[in-house]
């Protein structure tokens, strides 16, 4: 663990300050055949999310009489990571599919879709840290794009600890050689966490401080989400921007 992640000027391996996010780019409606979709880029992390539904539940016996069900698959392309990921779902992908589903399920008004199913597909094209949080941010946009009624639009970011310093939005190198990674998804208007995990060592105080960093960042990301949706749905005033 000789790799230095914070230099003498307090800057990170990619030159960021501890509380600085990487460049984030969002676009809504990027896929043709889904009912809603989004693309999110966060530094080197690149993710497509697509939503299909509400549609009939398949297989039939899984349908619920009084509310809809959500299916979620978080999946990484084989070449998205440094060492080729084997085809098929790894245990990590299965766990992340569960926690991402649970986060989104929290805000979707499932009671409005009795006997229906909503599929959410998160495809990681390149993984450079923060894939689950960027994936949730993208999936949330895709749900909005699909017109699924939600109590709030979730945004998410990871906080980490590297060389003893709390940092926002850790990249893969920081995740690999750092001390902790804490992905957080928040429903901003409800001021509540909907996904929370921690891998690594953090004191209770650091967790508190990290959450505050995440809360602030999530406000910004949420704003970006709204912009991205507006870009798609805005009535263009005479041929301006795309």
């Amino acid at each position, binding site marked *: 663990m000789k790799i230095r992640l914070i230099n003498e000027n307090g800057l990170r391996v990619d030159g960021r300050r501890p509380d600085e996010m990487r460049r984030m780019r969002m676009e809504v409606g990027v896929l043709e055949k889904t009912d809603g979709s989004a693309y999110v880029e966060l530094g080197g992390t690149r993710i497509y999310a697509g939503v299909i539904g509400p549609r009939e539940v398949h297989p039939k016996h899984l349908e619920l009489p009084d509310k809809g069900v959500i299916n979620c698959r978080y999946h990484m392309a084989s070449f998205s990571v440094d060492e080729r990921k084997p085809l098929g779902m790894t245990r990590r992908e299965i766990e992340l599919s569960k926690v991402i589903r649970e986060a989104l399920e929290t805000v979707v008004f499932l009671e409005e879709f009795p006997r229906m199913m909503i599929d959410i597909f998160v495809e990681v094209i390149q993984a450079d840290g923060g894939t689950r949080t960027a994936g949730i941010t993208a999936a949330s946009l895709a749900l909005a794009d699909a017109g699924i009624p939600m109590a709030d639009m979730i945004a998410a970011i990871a906080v980490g600890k590297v060389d003893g310093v709390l940092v926002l939005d850790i990249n893969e190198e920081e995740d690999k050689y750092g001390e902790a990674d804490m992905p957080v998804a928040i429903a901003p208007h409800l001021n509540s966490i909907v996904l929370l995990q921690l891998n690594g060592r953090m*004191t209770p105080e650091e967790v*508190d401080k990290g959450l505050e960093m995440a809360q602030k960042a999530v406000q910004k990301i949420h704003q970006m989400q709204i912009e991205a949706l507006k870009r798609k749905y805005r009535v263009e005033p005479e041929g301006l921007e795309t």
Partner: protein
Amino acid sequence: MSLGLEKRGYGIKIMKNKIYELLKIGKRIDEREPLQYRKIEISTGVVEKANGSALVSLGKTKILTGIKVEVGTPYPDRPNEGVFTVNAELLPLASKTFEPGPPDERAIELSRIVDRVIRESKAIEVEKLCIVEGQKVYMIFIDCYVLDYDGNYFDASVLSAVAALKTMTLPVYRVVDGRIEAVPGEEMKLPMRTLPVSVTMALIRDKIVVDPLPAEEDVADTVVTIGYDSEGVLSAVQKSSPGLLPVNMFKEMVKIGLDSSAMLRRRLLEGVGDG
């Protein structure tokens, strides 16, 4: 694919009101206090064929962990570290909601949480588990079986896995003519840095309870598991259920969990005969 199938109908709402009314006067459906764990029983060395084993009861929840040691090759980027893996199975005789077959997402989540609590706290001194650098290291297989499920398999599995690790023995190897062989009659304990435990809490409206029962999980707004090492540093967090978790409630949980973790660690030390 992860599929959400929790059924939350009117029955749940009535139950939630009942449980919450009790909580307002500091009571729970099984007479416990909100921050009280159920009775914990720990037996170690219950499977002689395993290198380590522990049967842990947490109320009516029962977990058996067995550990097997093999010799294998290290990961190329960690040539002088031993390797461990955690697996968890929800045996179908433990609950009518468990099904035989390959581990489902709940079993995988359980095994990954147990793994994380142990791994991220650096509990196992893996760098002492190297036999021949780059070639031969100890491989430790930690397998947790849920034998009886009455809620909170997280904390019970962590207790069971750590109790088995703490009491296990490993064969001692020496290199003879370039080949490794076990030294007859010699055994060593697993080198450990800390004794991690996890604390699982349910949020029911504005009330927090530890070690929730299935009925409490059913009505809970959400459920969170936090792992702590011996110094009170967190090593893992998992919000393992849908639902809103207000930020201040989580901060409260971190404190409650810290207290409970100390109690659990004392029980663990008693259980492994070091208390």
